[in-house]
């Protein structure tokens, strides 16, 4: 203790302005990193994966096809397919599309895998140039993030049934058996 006390006596009690400025900068930068780091980590964790509250999810796991905006216009079904979820490495495969009206036991229109595979490319209007919906040997291949309007001609019988009902429900089935439905508005 005696040795240390002599050292203490020579220490200036006033801290220089440069030292104070340096410490202030270190403190500000450290707190900045702390706040920014905690914010982007927790915010993105909740936003992407619902990891803090709600049920933990992974948008990249199971395919989801959203049909919003699909319309029937005259004798044509404008089917909008948008796939925001699912694996990026492998496509989703649409192998069945049906159109039903309320109260009817059987669909007024059904498109089978071989019919879907024969859709002319001119009837598939992709929204984005890279991730595109295409026909495959057994239906439509829908990669992650692809969005397209696919035009289907309706028979006159189907058209009149839909006109009478005033609305119709479109169903899209993935090869895994997962189905997505949407109530179509008439135009």
């Amino acid at each position, binding site marked *: 203790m005696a040795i240390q006390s002599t050292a203490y006596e020579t*220490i200036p009690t006033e801290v220089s302005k440069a030292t104070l400025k340096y410490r202030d900068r270190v403190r500000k930068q450290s707190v900045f990193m702390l706040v920014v*780091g905690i914010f982007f980590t927790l915010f993105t*964790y909740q936003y992407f994966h619902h990891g803090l509250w709600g049920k933990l999810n992974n948008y*990249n796991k199971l395919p989801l096809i959203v049909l919003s905006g699909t319309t029937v216009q005259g004798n044509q079904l404008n089917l909008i397919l948008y796939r925001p979820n699912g*694996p990026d490495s492998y496509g989703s495969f649409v192998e069945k599309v049906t159109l039903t009206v309320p109260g009817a036991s059987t669909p007024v229109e059904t498109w089978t895998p071989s019919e879907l595979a024969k859709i002319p490319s001119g009837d598939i209007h992709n929204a984005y140039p*890279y991730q595109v919906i295409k026909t495959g040997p057994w239906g439509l291949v829908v990669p992650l*993030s692809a969005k397209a309007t696919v035009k289907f001609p309706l028979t006159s019988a189907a058209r009149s049934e839909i006109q009478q009902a005033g609305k119709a429900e479109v169903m899209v089935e993935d090869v895994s058996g997962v189905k997505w439905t949407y109530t179509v508005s008439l135009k």
Partner: protein
Amino acid sequence: MSTAEEYFHDVHQGNRDSLPPAEFVPISYLWALRLVLGFQFLSAFMRRYINVPAKMDPTSSGFIGHKFSEFFPHAIWPVKPILLAIIQHPPVTFAFLTFFSFIELLVGLFLITGTLTKLAGFGAALLSLMILFGSGWLGTSCVDEWQIGTVEGIAAMVFMFAGSGRWGVDHWLRRFWNGQIKLGRFQISLL
């Protein structure tokens, strides 16, 4: 262990035996992290220009434009509108991808060699946060991209403030230039 005042005083007095207090840690502890972090960016460039050139070929299915497109559905502002602008126009996709890749090359080389380390750290933090906000929702089995983006982002910020220490080109550069520039009312240190 001494207090900060004692340590500074000892160093000032020319006492080379003095040990720094606990809150002062040698920057050499960060060298390995700087190498690993820099190589993440350098290797991203290498994968596109050396390993798999198809990643830079707009006609290929491996083109990175497809990845940009995949990021879009759950990306966060401001990356989402940027992605939309990029993926709708193929020439813009290619130009942006080339620009982005060369920034990654520079950031990677600068971090590894300790050149303008604080500036490189800033670039690395921006790249990491862009990757996080764009693709943070991807990862089929784990939360892969979220982990990459957050860890790289905060590691980059450490170098943005800490710099390179003795090991790096900055150590030599400091003989000629203190690396300070003035941007408006901000005094910014590049190395």
